[in-house]
């Protein structure tokens, strides 16, 4: 492998958490893969689209040892569809520069996992979902393990590429302690006409409907199965 590669981990803005910063399990897996892959040889950038109050995952990523943390300042991403989120993140990734983009399997706030495909489309790079193992090989390329159609496959994927991570190497392991302070979170503002994209594309989410479902508490395994089977 010649030269340092740039890895970008896309994190999603968490729902408001009164107990502090939060990193979703899917995002944590992506971050763990990135830090493990990068070691000391490559650079890792954590990227998030959202407001300053949603930057908690970036602080956690800095604590875990990423080299850069970048927030795309976009107030309206919470109400945007995956096309918009993908387009906005792709704009930021172009500015940052990336060889490998990793995201959690549920990458956007609606739990769709479709934003990575939109990122790949806007960047014009390969897209592979639900990856379980990754290793760098010469090329530059990665060898990944993924499953589908009843097969567990090892694939060689030429970089650049967007991968979503479905399983991981375990909990996030921080890199070696920094010698200095963590770098500040960088902010990429969206300038017109880019920002108009966010306002334009918010209709594909569909119509929200209330979900009136409570939790039924039971006291035996048989009652649990009975309650679940009831329609």
């Amino acid at each position, binding site marked *: 492998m010649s030269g340092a590669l740039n890895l970008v981990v896309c994190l999603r803005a968490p*729902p408001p958490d009164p107990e502090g910063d939060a990193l979703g399990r*899917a995002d944590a897996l992506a971050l763990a893969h990135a830090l493990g892959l990068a070691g000391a040889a490559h650079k890792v950038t954590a990227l998030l689209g959202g407001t300053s109050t949603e930057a908690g995952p970036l602080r956690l990523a800095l604590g875990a040892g990423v080299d850069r943390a970048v927030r795309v300042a976009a107030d309206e991403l919470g109400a945007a569809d*995956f*096309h918009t989120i*993908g387009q906005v993140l792709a704009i930021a990734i172009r500015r940052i520069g990336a060889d490998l983009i990793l995201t959690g*399997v*549920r990458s956007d*706030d*609606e*739990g*769709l*996992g*479709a934003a*990575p*495909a*939109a990122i*790949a*489309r806007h960047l014009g790079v*390969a*897209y*592979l*979902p*639900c990856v*379980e193992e990754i290793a760098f090989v010469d090329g530059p390329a990665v060898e990944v393990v993924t*499953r*589908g*159609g*009843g*097969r*567990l*496959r*090892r*694939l*060689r*994927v*030429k970089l650049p590429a967007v991968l979503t991570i*479905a*399983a*991981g190497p375990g909990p996030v392991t921080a890199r070696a302690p920094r010698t200095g302070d963590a770098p500040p979170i960088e902010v990429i503002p969206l300038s017109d006409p880019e920002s108009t994209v966010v306002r334009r594309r918010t*209709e*594909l*989410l*569909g119509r*929200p*409907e209330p*979900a009136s*479902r409570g*939790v*039924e*508490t*039971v*006291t*035996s*395994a048989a*009652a*649990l*199965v009975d*309650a*679940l*089977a009831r329609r």
Partner: protein
Amino acid sequence: MNDRELGGPVVARLGCAGADKVLLCEGAGLAAPPLEATHGAALLAAVERVSPLLVLFPAGGGGLALGPSLAARIGAAFAGAADLEVTDAGPLAEGVGRVFLRRWRGGRAAYRRLDPVEIERPVVAILAAGAVEREAGTAEIDVEVVTCAVPQQTGVVEISSEADGDALVALSRVVVAVDPALGPDAVARIAAGAPSGVTVVDRDRAAAAIAASAPEILIAIGDVELPVMGTPRGRVGAIVVGDGDTAPRARAVDVLWRVPAGSTGEKLWGEIAKALSAFGTSAPARARTKTRAKAHE
């Protein structure tokens, strides 16, 4: 998508299931498990032929690999796990369709109703496992072949391939995910009572397979944070050990059984295994699961 002509029984089965026509994307390499790099262009060619309002993938099919990219390419809405709803409730408001999809919003806080007529865009969606197969058409249907060229320089090369030991997870009507912290015997003991159509797995070892699934019923034993939400019609159960910090997040589950700390072990696994046997699937569902598993071999 296939690399050769479809067999008569396959076409007849699709016709009996309700298809009016089969669009067959035929090309070298298309019989392999789908990837966006190798199959995306072929699927897009087929979709552009018919300009559909809905593109539906079955659970355990190529939806995760192909659906998001297809939606990105055609400007569609996407639902990673959705219920297909058909309404026959009288005259509808102008611009509202009779067939629509419903999926969870993030965190199971509410639903999203995706009506392709209302949003004036197609919808690409993956359906839940466990739908009932029934005769809805005739075996005699047309097959239109879309000849697809082999994509050049896809950037993806297969190094090796083996049977996926967790392939049934995505096809199962009921998935039981067991926290590995409960010990190595828990999965085996609970699985011993599981009827066909019910798959019991170690939550961490099978994390990727669980993430790719949309079962009708999902049961988490132990830690209840799972990387899958299912569909609105689906149900989530949790068996939580102890109390206090192990409480599931609001709206994360529909049915909760809290067992005392220290009660885990052979007796509890036996009780759960016995209860799961009540899920004894209906004959058609059982047959379907076996058929799909065989098709994957």
